[in-house]
């Protein structure tokens, strides 16, 4: 059953240089207990997508489409109703734990905040819960650590705090934005395992550019390029049988898969041309690609691709 269903989601916001079309017509389904990996490179709009689900973008952002969570369209809720969902129903792990934790508040208090707010616990009960959460993310001597400040934690430990904070109110859905970026490799694997463990009974949207991490955690993977999804499939299928030229190129450019680059660079999200967005970098490009914008087509078995090679309708 679908837990979160994005339909024709568009997120645009004005800047001095023009309107940034960060997210353009995205349809995405997250099932109950499903883990979807959202893969994309810098500036493809994946963080904006995550924030727009939580409605945490600046007020001048224009969001269109539907964003249905448990039968309710989040975009139509009042700010107060939305606030009650944040942290409680849907929790978010923001990018970069160093800047995402408040430097002048104790780690324990930052976690307790959400617990007290959503679960109405008193100070002592909340504190117990905090220690429990810190222990759940395997932070050693949690009682002591709860009273420390973020700068006393290492990068990996801060990431654990972010996870504990997200888990604090037992949310149904977690949106994790690049939780492994910037971590050293030995620590990264620990975080990935931890995330896998704590999301066993939950749904998750895992936003990352790290394919290995996504492969470890997610059942399905959505590949995003220049503000739209270009491929969506089971994790295995993405790795073994990528169909979109971008996905293929992306995989091949990984250092452990041959380091074969894709030529050119990602387009800017301002003033995107018609036609296929990957067209200028694509080796399979044809004349039609320049004019016709391809639609998502299903190749069977839950494998969707946005490419004219397959879109022969």
């Amino acid at each position, binding site marked *: 059953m679908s837990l979160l269903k994005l339909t024709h989601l568009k997120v645009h916001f004005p800047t001095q240089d023009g309107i*940034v079309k*960060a997210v353009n017509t995205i349809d995405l389904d997250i099932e109950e207990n499903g883990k979807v990996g959202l893969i994309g490179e810098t500036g*493809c*709009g994946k963080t*904006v997508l995550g924030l727009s689900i939580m409605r945490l973008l600046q007020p001048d952002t224009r969001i269109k489409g539907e964003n249905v969570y448990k039968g309710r369209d989040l975009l139509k809720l009042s700010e107060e109703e939305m606030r009650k969902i944040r942290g409680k129903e849907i929790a978010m792990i923001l990018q970069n734990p160093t800047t995402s934790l408040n430097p002048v508040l104790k780690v324990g208090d930052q976690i307790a905040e959400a617990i007290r707010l959503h679960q109405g616990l008193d100070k002592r009960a909340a504190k117990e819960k905090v220690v429990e959460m810190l222990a759940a993310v395997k932070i050693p001597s949690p009682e002591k650590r709860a009273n420390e400040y973020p700068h006393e934690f290492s990068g990996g430990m801060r990431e654990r705090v972010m996870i504990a904070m997200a888990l604090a109110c037992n949310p149904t859905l977690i949106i994790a934005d690049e939780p492994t970026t910037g971590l050293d490799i030995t620590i990264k694997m620990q975080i990935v395992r931890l995330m896998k463990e704590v999301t066993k009974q939950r749904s998750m949207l895992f936003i990352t550019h790290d394919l290995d991490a996504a492969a470890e955690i997610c059942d399905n993977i959505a590949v995003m390029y220049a503000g739209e999804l270009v491929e969506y499939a089971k994790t295995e299928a993405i790795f073994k049988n990528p169909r979109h030229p971008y996905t293929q190129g992306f995989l091949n450019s990984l250092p452990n898969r041959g380091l074969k680059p894709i030529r050119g660079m990602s387009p800017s999200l301002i003033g995107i041309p018609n036609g296929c967005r990957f067209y200028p970098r694509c080796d399979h490009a044809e004349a039609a690609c320049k004019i016709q914008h391809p639609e998502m087509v299903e190749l069977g078995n839950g494998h969707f691709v946005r490419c004219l090679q397959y879109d022969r309708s």
Partner: protein
Amino acid sequence: MLRKKTFAIGICILVAFSIIAIFSPLLTPYDPYKIIETPLEKPNKNHVLGTNALGQDIFSRLIYGTRATLLIGFIGALVSISIGTFVGTVSGYYGGKIDEFITRAIDIIMTIPMFPLLLVLSIFLTPNMLGISVLMGILGWAGFSRIIRSQVLSLSEYNFIYSVRAMGARDPYIMAKHILPNILPLVVVKFVFAAQNYMLMGVGLGFLGLGDPSMIDWGQMINCAYTNGGFALGMWWWLLPPGLSIAFLSIAVSLVGYSFEDEINPRLRRMVS
């Protein structure tokens, strides 16, 4: 858009004041020093703003007063900004022990109140405008140099400074060619605000009776009107014009400064993954 307009207005007013200052002799109907008429005259056909207690033409004095104020602001700002830029750049660029020493020294200098010190010193100095404005500049560079230092420091963290050094460029070259152009906008903004500050202070000194007696300045005019009873007698044409002039000038400088500042402040960054 709005800021561009305020900037233009501010600049226009400033230019007008400068023209008044430069061409004062051509604009004044009377010699501002000369005692021509009966004292304490009300505004009339001959004297737009009447005459003061000595019988000098207030309007002419007002026009001449522009010079002193603008000069004090400009010279004071020039001195303090030059010293501040130099010290701040050296401190931020070299870092290490030099920086630590300079930073500590500035911390300490900043706790010494400049204006009371200026008053103490003014007892010894024969009041002359150039001396006073240079002295104000010398006393006032510390806070500014701290701002420049932190800017240079964050610039030095950018690797382009490192890579030019790795290329074998000399330090003075790097400072002149790579650091200065990058801090210049900040320097300009601070210059404008410093000039405003020194103008107000210059007029303030005049008001306290510490101005250059050989120059006409608005502060002395206010002081004169205030102490000679212009206030109690309700002679607004004597008291108001110099005060309004400094207020008007200061607002103009403010407009320029804040519009500049808006321009150089890093825009709030938008989030695109």
